[in-house]
């Protein structure tokens, strides 16, 4: 029983970080219908920025989110204006190709700037855990999970309690209607892309403390995060959080009770099973065009 609780807690903590990263991807898709394959690359970029801030300035990588996230937000906005905006309304295949290319360019640039050797960030608490009886909760995971909740909470408030959030939701649910009431879709899209990238940035700063990384690590992240978003329902924020937690728990439970060899595969099998029953994902909504397609 104790082992079960321990593994469940570890899974939930892992899911929290996944949720943060997936939220940005699903937000960008929800508003812009752009599948941002470069999402993982932005995450790793934030990891390297955190690493530099930590080694040069001694800034704790988790506190450093206050510095790295605005930087990554600004970079995301710039990338949107320069690269993504011209093809925002192009067919989805074009945006997938473009963002995949962007991921490759970012990987090469990171390799050039920071090198292709494995990078680790080790703040003082990295090897420490909170203990409750026989249970242990790694401090870095707890801090990371809490930060993920704070950032996700902030995102929720932004989307539901502010004018900007209403504009974003309006643009997502009915772009033409939103434009008719005076919302500039292009400006909203730029903002959404930058916010989405910023959440990847926050996730990247946390992930960099948890795991060593190289520029090429973004492939592992994008594969996992895309699966989470599809599982939760493309464009659904709640679905992304739910999918992420399911993914995290499935991964740890499989590792503990089946075999570590299956740990990264079983969550995908669950995703297939869910999609067979609900093609739109857990909390995704079925669109008119989906119905026509079937």
């Amino acid at each position, binding site marked *: 029983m104790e082992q079960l609780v321990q593994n469940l807690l570890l899974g939930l903590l892992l899911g929290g970080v996944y949720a943060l990263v997936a939220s940005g991807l699903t937000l960008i898709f929800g508003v812009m219908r752009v599948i941002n394959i470069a999402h993982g690359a932005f995450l790793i970029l934030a990891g390297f920025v955190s690493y530099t801030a930590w080694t040069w300035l001694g800034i704790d990588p988790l506190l450093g989110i206050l510095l790295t996230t605005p930087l990554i937000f600004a970079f995301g906005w710039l990338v949107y204006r320069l690269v993504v905006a011209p093809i925002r309304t192009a067919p989805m295949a074009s945006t997938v190709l473009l963002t995949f290319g962007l991921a490759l360019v970012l990987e090469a640039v990171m390799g050039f700037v920071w090198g292709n050797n494995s990078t680790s960030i080790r703040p003082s608490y990295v090897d420490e*855990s909170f203990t409750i009886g026989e249970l242990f909760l790694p401090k870095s995971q707890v801090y990371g999970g809490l930060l993920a909740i704070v950032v996700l909470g902030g995102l929720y408030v932004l989307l539901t309690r502010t004018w900007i959030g209403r504009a974003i939701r309006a643009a997502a649910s009915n772009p033409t209607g939103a434009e008719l009431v005076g919302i500039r879709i292009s400006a909203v899209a730029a903002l959404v892309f930058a916010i989405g990238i910023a959440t990847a940035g926050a996730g990247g700063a946390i992930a960099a403390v948890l795991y060593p990384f190289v520029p090429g690590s973004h492939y592992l992240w994008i594969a996992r995060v895309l699966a989470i978003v599809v599982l939760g329902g493309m464009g659904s924020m709640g679905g992304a959080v739910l999918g992420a937690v399911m993914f995290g728990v499935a991964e740890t439970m499989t590792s503990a009770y089946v075999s570590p060899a299956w740990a990264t595969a079983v969550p995908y099998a669950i995703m297939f099973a869910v999609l067979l029953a609900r093609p739109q994902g857990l909390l995704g909504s079925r669109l008119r065009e989906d119905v026509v397609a079937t």
Partner: protein
Amino acid sequence: MAPLPHPGGRVRASVTLIAAVAALSLAASACGIGGGGDEAGEQDAGPITIGASLPLTGEFSQPGQAAKEGYEVWQEMVNAEGGLLGRQVELIIKDDASNQNTIVADYNALISQDNVDLLLGTFSSLLNLPASAVAERNQMLYVEPAGGSPEMFNRGFEYLFFTQQAPVDRQGQVFAEWLISLPEDQRPKTAAYPTLDDPFAIPTSEGIEEILVDAGIETVYRETYAIDTKNFDTIVNRLKAEQPDLVVNGAIFEDGIGLIRAMRKAGFAPGWLYQSTAPSLGDQYAEGIGPENTEGVMFAISHAPEAETPGNEEFVAKYDEMLGGLPPEDAADAFASGQVLQAAVEGVGSIEDQAALADWLRENEVETILGPLSWDETGATEGDFLVGQWQDGQVEYVLPEEAATTDHIVMGWKPGDAN
């Protein structure tokens, strides 16, 4: 060829044409059309070109970068001494991004498009398995600095030669035999084997397990984990529950770092810790797990900078001059591959006949910075690895005794503030 465009069909025709050209070039490279082997000696005047594809990015970038350094130091030293058969050596190194598909395309391209005269191998068994098959099909000598998995040598290849001391299933042999030679009260009673699902890592840990089980050391855990495993907490949670005296981790690099970090977070420290590859990567390893956690970690290693093997002092000095610091093991392994290739070419006196180069290697022993190497029919070597141990933040060579840099062995793993 593609049909002529008809009105309104120009774009489609262009796409068809491009697809046709792409398909043809893919097919050509897959079949090895225009293979460089036969044409190798036709450009006598120019440099000898030697091709390799290394994992310069991706999961295996750590050893890949080091191997590139080793090849480049070898090239520099060979050229400074007048080259190979009086011709300068030119390296063509591609990046396979740690990908098994890319590496096949890379070696095909090296042979059929770059028309290289000779090949050198890549890093990790995972990548050498398909790369060596391309070389074999094109009947080109394939001297590899890594790729010691038993699978490499049971395919009946004639052009494959491994240049570390022994295949990986015997990599931990010296360590395991030393461990079971300890007095009963110091010897571990139980062992756990968390291992990366990889053709290098699995036989390494299985080779050790076989010796330890025969000596009565009970296996309490053996599991493999996938290469994209980031989260080691649950594996360590199981290990903690089993409380083994010894953990043998068949690792490459990041996974080895991840496992130790998870052990530290869980407050679990086995009495003994052995890892493959990762601890041999010097400062990168210490930075990854924290220097305070390195004390007593044991591993097999092929090269010692202090070794008095022929040419080693010059290699270490040249490496320091070109790149700074001490050479990592993987750079030394790559350098040794260069030495073996050089010995074969100079022994035969020509690069025309790749089969003759292979025959020469099968019949001769080559002195390298890793010690003398000789090969059986399969291209596998038959020597012993060194055993390294982290002591006071440095790597020491503790076994075998004749190659040891210290007579002191730290008895077990003593991480930072472990209980």
